[in-house]
Structures are given as C-alpha cells and as structure tokens.
C-alpha cells in the first residue's frame, strides 16, 4: 500500500484545470514532485490534505480517503508550506511546541518532541529568539521542524529549498534525504529545480499543466544512454581530429561542445577510442558513460518552461 494513491484526480477551477485525470502512486522513501510554477503541485498537496475538494476522481493518503477522512490524514501528515507562515513575534521553540499540541500531543511530550526536532533541523540557541529576525535558512528550518514535531508518517514539503543559498540548500537537501531514510518518514518533496530532486529522490513524479508526464524511479530517469562522452587534450582542433578518426574507424561520433559523444557498439568501443587517441598523440582527459538527466524528460515531453539547474 503506497503512502499516496490517486486515481483520475481532477481539479477544475472556473477558468483553469489545475489537475487533469491524475493517476499517481507514491511509496515510502523520498518522492520528488517536479513541475513548473502552475503545474498543479500545490493544488495536489491541498487536495491530499483534505483542504480543498477534488472535482472528480479519488485520492487516498496512508489508506484514508481525502474526501471523507481529512481529519485522520491531517493527524498523520506533516506539511511544510511553500510560503512564509511564521509569526514574527513568537520564538521557534514556542511555535513548534504549540503546533505539536495542535496535532494532539500533550504539553510535555510536545516540548520534548519540539526540542528533538529543532535539534535535528539544526536550530540551536536561536530557537528562543522571535522568528521575525530569522534568516531565510533559519525560517525554512523552523517550518520543517513544525512539520515533523508530531512524528508524522508522511511529510509534504512544498519547495523546502526556496530562497536558500547554495550551502544551506545542500544542508536542507541532506536533511530531506535523512528524513526519508533514517527517520523512516515517507517524503513528498516538490521543487522546480530538477537537479535537486535527482540527488535526493528515490522516485520522481513529473507534472505538466496538471497532467502526469512521467512517474518513475529516479534510476530510470538517469539510466545509461549507451553513449560515451570523450574529452581529449591537444592542439586546438584535437576533438575534431579524433572525431574524424572515429568516424573513419566506422563508429558513430558527433561533437558535443568541446567534447565528443560516441555511440557504444560493443565492449571494444572504449579500446578503439583509447587507441585512436594514442595514435593521434592526444591526451585522454575523460571517457565516461553519459547518463540521462531528468531535464531530458522535459525536453522530450515539450514542457520547456521548466528551468533546469
């Protein structure tokens, strides 16, 4: 039984169709939900929390129907909203304790849990300061802490890396990965940055204008393409020389920027590349298998509005 199952889920607003016949299944571990702004990510999350009704179709979260059992879902799920949601004159510690109580934890347990999760997200002494003076990184951590305080079985993280600098971004991604693996909490994390999800997700769901573009394990997206990427060093036209030599040897080869891509025929292809490079007196800098990246899905799928990393 997956954490999230939707069948023919549709949400229509008077002028737009936010979700269109969506069939998605999300299991344990970290699942990335990718899509451009307006692709329907936030709408999907709101429906999953039972906050807005779907126009048609069904969805279940942790075995509960979103249409009838929203309360049960909301007690088992943690939600980190995309937008700012922290009161400025309250400390992170007080807010997280309060939110724990709002999820039904007794006061003392809520305090204990709050102190635990604030440590996990990396808020130290600053947790006692009013959140109005927090940096974006600290705010994101506080938002994540309140989503975890009641030990949910599933967390929905809406753009957790929004507005973070590169090093905080790495920290946040590592934390999200940790939640899905070490903490044993299923994670659905949205982003419009594909590279991020490639790094941390076990599974990726791609939405485009409310339609499901693809839903596969991350490894499927990044499978080997049967193409060798070769970089050589030498005179200015070294790459061209090698390319012509490769074509002369009966291989399919084409330039890729300053490098050359070679179609792998069999296990001798690498040897041929190496020998030709030596024969031409060039230095072989790199020879690697080229992998797909998730952004290729968008190129192929025609959803050009997504910004690859």
């Amino acid at each position, binding site marked *: 039984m997956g954490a999230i199952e939707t069948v023919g889920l549709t949400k229509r607003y008077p002028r737009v169709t936010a979700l269109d016949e969506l069939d998605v299944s999300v299991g344990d571990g970290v699942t990335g939900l990718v899509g451009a702004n307006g692709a329907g990510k936030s709408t999907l999350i709101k429906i999953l929390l039972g906050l807005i009704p779907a126009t048609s179709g069904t969805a279940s979260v942790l075995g509960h129907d979103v249409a009838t059992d929203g309360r049960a879902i909301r007690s088992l799920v943690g939600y980190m909203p995309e937008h700012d949601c*922290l009161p400025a004159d309250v400390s992170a510690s007080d807010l997280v304790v309060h939110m724990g109580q*709002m999820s039904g934890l007794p006061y003392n347990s809520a305090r204990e849990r709050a102190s*635990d999760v604030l440590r996990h997200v990396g808020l130290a002494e600053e947790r006692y300061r009013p959140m109005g003076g927090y940096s974006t990184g600290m705010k994101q951590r506080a938002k994540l802490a309140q989503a975890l305080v009641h030990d949910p079985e599933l967390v929905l993280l809406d753009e957790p890396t929004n507005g973070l600098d590169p090093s905080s971004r790495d920290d946040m991604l590592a934390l999200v990965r940790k939640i899905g693996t070490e*903490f044993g909490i299923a994670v659905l994390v949205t982003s419009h940055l594909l590279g991020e999800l490639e790094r941390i997700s076990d599974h990726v769901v791609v939405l485009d204008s409310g339609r499901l573009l693809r839903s596969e394990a991350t490894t499927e997206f990044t499978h080997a393409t049967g193409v060798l990427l070769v970089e050589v060093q030498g005179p200015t036209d070294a790459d061209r020389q090698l390319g012509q030599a490769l074509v002369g040897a009966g291989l399919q080869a084409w330039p890729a920027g300053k490098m050359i891509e070679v179609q792998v025929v069999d296990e001798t292809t690498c040897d041929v590349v190496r020998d030709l490079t030596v024969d031409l007196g060039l230095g072989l800098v790199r020879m690697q298998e080229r992998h797909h990246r998730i952004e290729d899905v968008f190129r192929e799928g025609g959803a050009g509005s997504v910004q690859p990393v």
Partner: protein
Amino acid sequence: MSSPSDALPPHAQPSGVIHDIGYRPYSGPRLGDGAVAWSLFVTGLRNCYGLGRSGRSKILPMILIGLMILPALILVGVLVQARQVLGLDSHIVAYSVYPLTTQLLISVFVAAQAPALISRDLRFGTITLYLARPASRTTYVLVRMASLTVATFLLIAAPLLVMYVGGLLADLPPGRETERFLQALVGALLLAACLAGLAALVSAMTTRRGLAVAAVIVVLLVSFTVVSSIQGVSLETGNDTTGEVAGLFSPYTLTQGVQVLLFDSPRATPTPPEGGTMTLIYLAATALTILGSLGAMLRRYRQVA
C-alpha cells in the same frame, strides 16, 4: 554517533557530552479534538494578555487591566472608609454602569488584541499551519473568538470582582450584592461577546494589523459617541423612542439596555429602553450581533485556502 571517549579516565570525562541518539519516533498518547481545541483556546487567551509573546506585547494589556481596576479600588476605598459619613448603602457606581464608564479602556483593549489574535494568523500565513492540522476551520474560528471573548470578559469582570469583594467588606447586604454582581457578570459576558464578535470580524477583513486596530477603534468609539449624542438630543426634544432605538447600535448601550430590561439595573444612558417590545428588540439585537458576527467569521474563513 558520538560517545564519550573511552581513552579518558572516568574523572576526566567531560560531563556535558551530547549523545546523538538519532531520530526517536513518538509512541505516546495523541489527544482528541477537545484537548486540541482547549490548548488552542488557552494559548489564544494567554496571547491576548501578551503571555507567550514578546515582552513588548505584554505592556498594553497589563496597563489597561491596571487602569480598569484602579477606579474600582478607589471607589471601594471611599465606600469602606466613608460609608457612615456619606450615608451610602450601595456602591457609588453600580456594577452594570461600570463598563459604560470605562468603555474607552475596553475599546482600546479589544482594538489592540483582536488584530493580534486574528489578523496575525492571516498576515503571517500561520493559518495555513492550523488548517493542515486535525482541527477543522470551524473549530479554529469558534475557539479564536472564544479566546477573545473570555479575555475581554476577564478585563470587564476584574474590577466588578474588586467592587463585589469591597462591597462585602463594607458590610453591604451580601444577598443583594451577590445578585447584582451575578447580573452584571451576565451583562459583562454579553458585552464581551458583542465586542469580540465585531472586533474579530473587522480584524479578519484585513491582514494589516495597524489598519485593523484603527478600524476597530473607529467602529466601537464612533458608534458609542454617535449613539450617546442621539440619545442626548432625543431626551432634550422629548423623542425618547428614537433614543431607545439608537441604543441598539453600540454594544455598550445595547448590553446596558438588556441589563436594564432584564434585571432592572440602574440606568446609565439618557434614554433607557422600556417595555416588552423593546425587551424583545434588544435581546434580538444582542443575539444578532453575536451570532451574526460568528456566522460572518465562518463565512470569511471558508475563503481562506
């Protein structure tokens, strides 16, 4: 995982070692909706007096409650000390009149705290966090209004309690005093509910706190001033009915009128309402104010996503 170093002899081990015990799942009890609502209520009530908020937010409510109680203390002091000299056999200012006398302080309190409780959640988007938790939005709205009502009630009732205790100390008849005190508490509760309802509704219309404060002040003070003026003019011109009807349009004169009609409390307005029809109209207006603002609040929050 870190652990205290084994190499060190026991007495040299640092005492403050932090053990990373990893993530611990929670297996304790999870309380039901009642407990959640209660905890939201208590937090809201505390927040109204600045407790659990920044030090600065405590100043205004504490000053206001001090200013509310101070006149009551003075009145009680005068009553206890000079009862024989002045020949007093009841309070100098009646319980039911006290809130009307201190209406400015009450209005300022409600105007400052309603936006702090209501607009704040909308402005900072904290409402999203509440909606993503088990409690429904109806519960949220009802509990928030209950917190504000009770906070306002405490502000109005505190000086009444001081007067009641002082009255007993001054040997006023205990039975009569208890009856009047309890009647005034009913009036205070109705007033608190009306004020909280109106202020909450105004605050829920805007995410700008300053705007909400100003709007609530204007609604409460202007309505009271206009009503008082109309009542004064109608008394002068002998057109009492106009004044009685005008009394419906300010929470202070409305709930004062209800007390006059139901409990025959002392009159504090130039044209107090009289008669069975007016009783019905005043009660209906009170119910309409309280339930109407509740209904409007629920409607307003249905649009919050």
